[in-house]
């Protein structure tokens, strides 16, 4: 422990933390406070300016501060005021979330997840008992069967349609959840497959392939430009349709159809995201002692048994944080969707487009419709949601464990 004590020590600490503290207060905390305030007002393009005499506006809005007072624009439009009731923006967003049919629809969607959650519990139970009546694979297949049964039984398709007819918030969030639920397992599977292959010692040229397969991660820092290239593949005259026309098939206009546009974004985003999994899993694989496999080999274990009994359990601690963090980033994906479809195809006036994920919706509400009140209400709800998810993931992955000692 570093010596020094008393005032000098406190002064040093303050001096070193000070820039971070100021930066975070001004550029993170203040925007959150201002956002929360704006979310209960009717600020939009018709009410763009604060009424500095009115209570909180005068304190929170920077253009009201005495130093900048003379910069208050006095143009078109009326000053914004607090909504009556003050939660009007939230009510508009959430719509009829708390009505009977919507809750029922949510419930039937949740039922589909239940079998998969049950597998985990049953599997742990078996592990404790020491003998397995059925193998894990069978359990998973069974769960998938039950889930399909539920889908048919409870008319999940109709439930989904009910949700998609609800307020903007449900539509956009459910769609983003669907995106995360499809994209993250896909990148995990692709990353795992490639990492397993690249990890085998008897494979000439694997360094070459590792570098080649790493390229998308490098390109992902310029995601929005590369996503434009991806958009080109899926255009009506794009690469895919040209190749299809060789075989005499008339391609679709992929980005105009809601389902294929969604799929196109999943594929493009998969391209950006699988290398991270690949690298993380590869690192974890290299830390598994070869003795474990040698012992399994002596006992006559098959490749599949080695994979499910040795490899996967041993890399679990390393890939769990990666999975959780990737899910949170996937939830906040913006560039890929913005460059490829800009939220379209349009489903009707005043409705979010078919690929409007949360961040695209937020961006459009702020910068195109300029409905700040609603956008900030959306932000506050998302913040609560993401905050909870982050805290939960910290507990789940013990990411901060050790770092705080």
């Amino acid at each position, binding site marked *: 422990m570093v010596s020094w004590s008393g005032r000098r020590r406190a002064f040093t600490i303050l001096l070193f933390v000070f820039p971070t503290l100021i930066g975070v207060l001004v550029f993170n905390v203040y925007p959150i406070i201002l956002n929360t305030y704006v979310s209960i007002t009717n600020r939009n393009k018709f009410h763009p300016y604060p009424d500095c005499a009115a209570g909180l506006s005068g304190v929170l809005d*920077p253009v009201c501060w005495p130093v900048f007072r003379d910069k208050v624009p006095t143009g078109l439009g009326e000053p914004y005021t607090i909504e009556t009731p003050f939660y009007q923006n939230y009510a508009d967003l959430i719509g009829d979330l708390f009505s009977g049919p919507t809750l029922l629809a949510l419930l039937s969607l949740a039922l589909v997840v239940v079998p998969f959650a049950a597998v985990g519990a049953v599997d742990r139970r078996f592990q404790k008992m020491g003998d397995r009546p059925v193998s894990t694979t069978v359990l998973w297949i069974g769960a998938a069967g039950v889930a399909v049964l539920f889908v048919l039984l409870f008319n999940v398709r109709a439930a989904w349609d009910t949700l998609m007819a609800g307020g903007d918030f449900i539509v956009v969030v459910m769609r983003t959840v669907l995106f995360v639920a499809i994209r993250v397992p896909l990148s995990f599977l692709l990353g795992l497959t490639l990492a397993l292959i690249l990890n085998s010692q008897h494979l000439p040229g694997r360094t070459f392939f590792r570098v080649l397969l790493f390229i998308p991660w490098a390109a992902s820092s310029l995601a929005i430009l590369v996503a434009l*290239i991806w958009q080109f*593949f899926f255009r009506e005259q794009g690469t895919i349709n040209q190749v299809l026309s060789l075989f005499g098939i008339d391609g679709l206009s992929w980005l105009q159809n809601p389902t294929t546009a969604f799929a196109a974004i999943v594929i493009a985003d998969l391209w950006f995201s699988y290398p991270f999994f690949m690298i993380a899993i590869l690192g974890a694989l290299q830390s598994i002692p070869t003795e474990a496999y040698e012992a399994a080999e002596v006992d006559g274990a098959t490749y599949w048994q080695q994979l499910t009994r040795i490899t996967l359990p041993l890399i679990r601690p390393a890939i769990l944080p990666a999975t959780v963090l990737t899910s949170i980033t996937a939830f906040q994906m913006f560039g890929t969707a913005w460059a490829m479809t800009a939220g379209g195809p349009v489903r009707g006036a005043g409705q979010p487009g078919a690929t409007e994920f949360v961040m695209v919706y937020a961006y459009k509400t702020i910068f195109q419709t300029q409905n700040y009140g609603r956008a900030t209400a959306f932000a506050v709800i998302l913040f609560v949601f993401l905050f909870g998810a982050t805290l939960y993931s910290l507990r789940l992955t013990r990411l901060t464990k050790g770092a705080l000692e």
Partner: protein
Amino acid sequence: MSRRPTAIALVFQYGILIIAGVFAFYPVWFAILASGRLGDRLYTLNVVGMFIPTEWTFENYRAMLVDKDLLTWLRNSLYVASLTTVASVIITTSAAFALSRFRFYGREFFLIFLLAIQTFPAILSLVAIAQLLTAIGLYGKHEGLILAYTTGTLVFSTWNMKGYFDTIPIDLEEAAMIDGCGPVQSFILIALPLARPALAVTALLGFLAGWGDFVFANVLVPAPDSMKLVVPGLFSLAGSQNVPWGYFAAGAMIIIIPTIIVFLSLQRFLVAGLTVGGVKG
């Protein structure tokens, strides 16, 4: 796994690798091809031209570098990104030093607090940041962008650096302090050189924050063309109807290829710097 694979397994493995390799490399390859094709020809009508170069010209590159604003955009981006890097490294190193080497009241709270506020979506704080920058007269200026980017990197890099510093034993610094160094001096002389991978990662992330971003640059410095950064500049170029796609491809290659090369050459460094620090993402 240690077992020597059978011939079938080997074929299977190479098959997957080759398909994945095509998937990984084709978008970049496609853009390279498009950048060498004459500008006004958006699509090659023969499919072969989409996979192997049937024609090649540097006209697009010349046009981008000479006729268009690309060089100005590049200069703007380099200016913003390098100042962000410097600011980010200095600020996060000093905070991480204090958080790693001292135990003080409120330290744990501060660390968790950093993580918590970071979950507020950046796009949504843009309105407030834009207003703030307007108020202090930095809206539409590169300096305002640098401020926004630097604060955007603070949380992740502080956590990452702190995690890395924690892995460096403090004994060496204590030895130096017995010899008469102060805590700060001994930290700079002894711990910092050992933390080079983490510093490299912080620098790279700081640089990329300014180099690759679209949303902030697009909103905070919307105009004029001569002030734009390279990513929003190219994006708007691709969106306008009267600019050939080949120009965009050439411009994109000029910035994508160096970025990929830097990433690949720093690969080992990056993975080590990110994983030892404890925070991955």
